[in-house]
């Protein structure tokens, strides 16, 4: 995979450098899965993989939005809180007897709205995304407790049917509707990034904002758009989470933004922006999911090992990005 040759030879076996992080993630995922299968008999069950998707569907959706933001070289710390706020709002509106359809519309509007506002502040006032989305995070989390201090159960028939619907083969393996929604979001996200003008602009902006501006690309619009997209993805993620838990709780999804950022980075997206793929993000989320599953299967390891392993992986992948970056010079 590596070569020290300085002359740019184009050998057929040479993997383009931009694919290296994604391939490393894929290798890691396969190795981890292989370890799981060799250690635990039940691990080879197809349902284990489906469960990883079911448990991490909302994370996947949010991570797609975060990929857009990180590709422009920004960061969105508000995602976890927006997820919680959306779930909380849906639960509270449903409890108030509102029909599910308007609830969905309202829930899907608030997230992008907040993202749009944050994008505007970031663009027009040139304040760092970090600090603006931090404020957004505080705001959304505060809204959660403002709505209700305790968890609100959801008993709406539409919600419960979405939560319990199982789509699967006769052998009993199944996925939930959330997984299908997550797949749709992933495909749309990947398509937008790869084949549309907006996607090209996102990469250009992340590569070099000054150049993008000089090329006449709509830097401001793109910047605002990615935060609105991230807000939309968080809102969808919030609804999926409310399908999953059938409740809205003010302290749900605390610290989720870190998991999401970790998934995007492990998936090979470079944090300075300009390089990365939605497919990598999917792999990153799967890696996190498989780690959790492995630790659950093991039984003797405690939950905090998850954090230590994720930290270690973050380190390894950032180091890898760094090494590739050095070689590029």
């Amino acid at each position, binding site marked *: 995979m590596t070569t020290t040759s300085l002359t740019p030879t184009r050998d057929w076996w040479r993997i383009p450098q931009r694919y290296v992080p994604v391939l490393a993630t894929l290798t890691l995922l396969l190795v981890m899965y292989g370890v799981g299968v060799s250690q635990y008999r039940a691990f080879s069950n197809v349902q284990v993989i489906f469960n990883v998707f079911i448990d991490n569907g909302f994370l996947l959706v949010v991570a797609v939005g975060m990929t857009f933001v990180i590709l422009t070289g920004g960061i969105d710390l508000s995602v976890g809180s927006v997820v919680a706020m959306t779930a909380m709002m849906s639960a509270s509106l449903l409890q108030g007897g509102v029909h599910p359809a308007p609830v969905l519309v309202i829930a899907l509007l608030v997230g992008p709205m907040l993202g749009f506002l944050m994008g505007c502040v970031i663009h027009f006032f040139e304040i*760092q995304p970090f600090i*603006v989305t931090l404020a957004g995070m505080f705001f959304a989390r505060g809204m959660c407790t403002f709505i209700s201090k305790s968890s609100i159960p959801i008993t709406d028939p539409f919600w419960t049917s979405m939560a319990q619907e199982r789509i699967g083969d006769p052998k009993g393996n199944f996925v939930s509707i959330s997984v299908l929604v997550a797949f749709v979001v992933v495909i749309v996200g990947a398509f937008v990034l790869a084949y549309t003008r907006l996607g090209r602009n996102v990469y250009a902006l992340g590569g070099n904002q000054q150049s993008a501006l000089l090329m006449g690309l709509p830097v401001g619009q793109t910047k605002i758009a990615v935060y609105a997209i991230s807000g939309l993805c968080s809102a969808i993620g919030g609804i999926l989470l409310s399908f999953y838990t059938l409740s809205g709780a003010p302290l749900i999804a605390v610290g989720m933004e870190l998991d999401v950022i970790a998934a995007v980075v492990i998936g090979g997206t470079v944090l300075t922006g300009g390089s990365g793929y939605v497919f990598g993000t999917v792999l990153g989320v799967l890696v996190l999911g498989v780690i959790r599953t492995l630790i659950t299967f093991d039984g003797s390891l405690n939950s905090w*090992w998850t954090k230590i392993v994720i930290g270690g992986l*973050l380190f390894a992948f950032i180091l890898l990005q*760094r090494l590739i970056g050095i070689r590029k010079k």
Partner: protein
Amino acid sequence: MSTSKARWAAVTGHSLFWPVVALIALLVANTIYRPGFLSVEMKDGHLYGSLIDILRLAAPLILVGLGMTLVIATGGIDLSVGSVCAISGAIACLHISQQPDQNALGGVLVALALGVGLSLVLGVWNGALVSIIGIQPIIATLILMVAGRGLAQLITEGQIITINSEPYKAVGVGYLLTLPLAIFIAAGVALVVAAVTRRTALGMIIESVGGNAEASRLAGIRSGRITFLVYVISAVCAGIAGFMITANVSSADGNAAGLWIELDAILAVVIGGTSLAGGRFSLGGTILGALLIQTLTTTVYAMNISPQTSLLFKAVVVIAVCLIQAPAFRARFARRRPAAPAAPTAADQPKEQVPA
């Protein structure tokens, strides 16, 4: 322009004008809501009162904020301080809980030394990642922020370690000369940091590294070492703050100790007028910012609003302060832009490392 107008502009234009106004407004609002707010009483040789409480509770935030100020001045950021707080508090409490006599001063001192030592190691780790390997600070410290919580829980084995040690408790709630000991510790650290950075060339060197690390290196400053140093200082400050946080409740909780403190500290630094792009810092501003945040938190508690909802107020404060400071930021950017040549090889230039 008339002179009075110019003077007014100078006052309102000062970077600390709005934070001071906000702090005074909060204090006034508190006094109106609760007339006894400003009173300070003498009981058993100790001073009691809301103002003293605010000072005492702000002490850990001031400590973390001081370290964070230096890191941000170099154009970096340290997200791991909360985890470092949890780790140092956990190791200190663990050591004390294993002592036969938890009140023995010797054991407590060893525990404190262990905590500071471990914080040093963590600071060295952060510093090495940023200055030697050249990872962007926000990400390099994110690693420890995620893994550190796990490490803290590993030390406490997922339990909350409760201790019963008077000398250790004193770090958080003890009194010295009628005032809480924590205030003296925070003030002492602040004085040392101020003396070292403002009475020697170190402060200016840190600012120059924040302004342009590469140019500073060419001018003969060891930029890498300065960057390394600020992360170590930040971790040690966080470690000491960790003692206070755990001593306040006489227990170490790997999950909750120092949670969100990194965000509060960054907030305090920003309110204090230190630019997140680096190159300039104000220690006094950070202390003011920390006091403002603690006053806000205390106010929210006093008004019977749930702690989580206080985040709403914090959000408003962050955005308000940032927006007020924004024109100044933009003016500074406009002046700096032609001076900074677009350097494609500036991968290890901290200024570009906080995603803009």
